[in-house]
């Protein structure tokens, strides 16, 4: 068994050969344990269907992380790349989903402390980091407040002031203790809970394109429930065209972005909300008061080569509003760009993407030097 052990230790081998060996081993293990019920069977059930298209691309539909995902890859290894990408999505879903009782995040939330795997610990650390950078607006511990509103279970209600202030006291990333050496995370207050949902899809998109690249694919597009991550350009060298949905619905888009090797991630109140007594309550909660954000922004799109960052900031800038967002963008010095739509319909577009964002709407270019 020493060979197997070695492969297990180097599970994240970067070469296609390594992956192939891993898959082979998994298949062998699967064959050996055939007949026994459990995860092996569950995985076989989730076999993905690949579709070869006239333009040379291979695509796949996937339903995971409570959303619809579509993967597309070009090149001779496209099929293997898609299968490996889909497997990575399922693996991360099993680790990160608050909807699964046995996910690492659920175990942490139940026990108040847990030793996390490398991926989850790394992502948790990143979430805390971005939380600090945004002055607490991105809050990985907001989950008790989200639960109070019923968003995770889709069992909506408006909480009382008392309930909210109690839950807000638990939404305190300063009361999270992390240990780099043991990868242990511990909550210091009883009842705290975390949710990586605010960055999980961005991170997953980035991981999938990384896996595509490891398989020798240099052109692909991944959309995880409207969170888009592009790998390279289209095969001919042209940039990918990503349209931003109009929060009002209708037949038009806010505009079209041209991107290469970047993530494009949009947040808006329209994605999830409920109504009570004629008032609309949406799912982007401002950690300052525990109520749905009301900053005057109706749609927030981030463009960045860092998918994880783009995901976190799309909600953060929605909460900030156009003025704070502008300040924050200047401070961050070129790590991302944005398109924000204000209530009056005006689009605020940062200069890094201004010349590759096409739109017929009223727009203002946001510049570094004001």
């Amino acid at each position: 068994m020493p060979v197997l052990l070695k492969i297990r230790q180097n599970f994240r081998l970067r070469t296609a050969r390594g992956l192939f060996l891993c898959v082979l081993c998994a298949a062998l293990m699967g064959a050996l344990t055939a007949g026994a019920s459990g995860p092996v069977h569950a995985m076989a059930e989730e076999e993905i269907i690949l579709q070869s298209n006239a333009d040379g691309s291979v695509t796949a539909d996937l339903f995971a992380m409570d959303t619809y995902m579509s993967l597309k890859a070009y090149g001779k290894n496209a099929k293997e790349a898609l299968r490996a990408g889909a497997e990575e999505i399922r693996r991360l879903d099993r680790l990160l989903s608050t909807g699964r009782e046995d996910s690492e995040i659920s175990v942490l939330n139940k026990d108040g402390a847990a030793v996390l795997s490398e991926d989850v610990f790394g992502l948790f650390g990143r979430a805390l980091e971005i939380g600090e950078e945004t002055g607490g607006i991105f809050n990985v511990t907001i989950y008790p407040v989200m639960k109070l509103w019923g968003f995770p279970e889709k069992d909506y209600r408006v909480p009382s002031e008392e309930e909210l202030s109690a839950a807000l006291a638990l939404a305190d990333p300063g009361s999270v203790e992390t240990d780099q050496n043991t990868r242990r995370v511990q909550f210091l207050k009883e009842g705290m809970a975390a949710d990586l949902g605010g960055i999980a899809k961005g991170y997953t998109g980035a991981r999938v394109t990384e896996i595509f690249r490891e398989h020798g694919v240099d052109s692909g597009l991944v959309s995880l429930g409207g969170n888009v991550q592009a790998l390279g350009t289209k095969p001919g060298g042209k940039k990918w065209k990503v349209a931003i949905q109009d929060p009002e619905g209708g037949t038009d888009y806010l505009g079209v972005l041209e991107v290469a090797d970047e993530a494009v991630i949009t947040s808006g109140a329209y994605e999830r909300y409920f109504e009570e007594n004629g008032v609309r309550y949406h799912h982007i909660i401002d950690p300052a008061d525990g109520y749905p954000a009301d900053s005057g922004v109706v749609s927030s799109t981030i463009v960045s080569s860092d998918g994880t960052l783009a995901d976190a900031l799309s909600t953060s800038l929605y909460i900030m509003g156009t003025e704070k967002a502008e300040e924050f963008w200047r401070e961050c010095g070129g790590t991302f760009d944005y398109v924000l739509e204000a209530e009056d319909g005006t689009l605020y577009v940062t200069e890094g993407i201004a010349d590759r964002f096409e739109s017929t709407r009223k727009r203002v270019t946001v510049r570094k030097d004001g």
Partner: protein
Amino acid sequence: MKKKDLLLLAGLLLAAGLAALILMAGRRGEAGAVTVRVDGQVVGIWSLAEDREEDIDTEYGHNHLSIRQGAAYMTEADCPDGYCMQQKKITGIGETIVCLPHRLVAEGVAAEGQTADEDGIDAVTG
């Protein structure tokens, strides 16, 4: 008719022709057909050129797709949220309507023989 009038007419015709060309160019991303997939498996491909009503019944449930005046949209669904019936009508290549509970995706595609469009939209964020 004077020569100048003829020139003017020719000029106007040319301008109109150019305008028409530009307008046509702007419509190149238009989908010629819609495909419907359930769990990634294609269950139907229908042209958008003719009006049509399609029932899609699978193990997950019932949907009804309507194709009217070049646009495809969901008009019936017995899923709990009915969100698919509120989604934007499909007219362009790459546009989708998703019924998550029924694992169903309708997508605008190029019709058979329609040249693949280089300048169409590749994805929608939101």
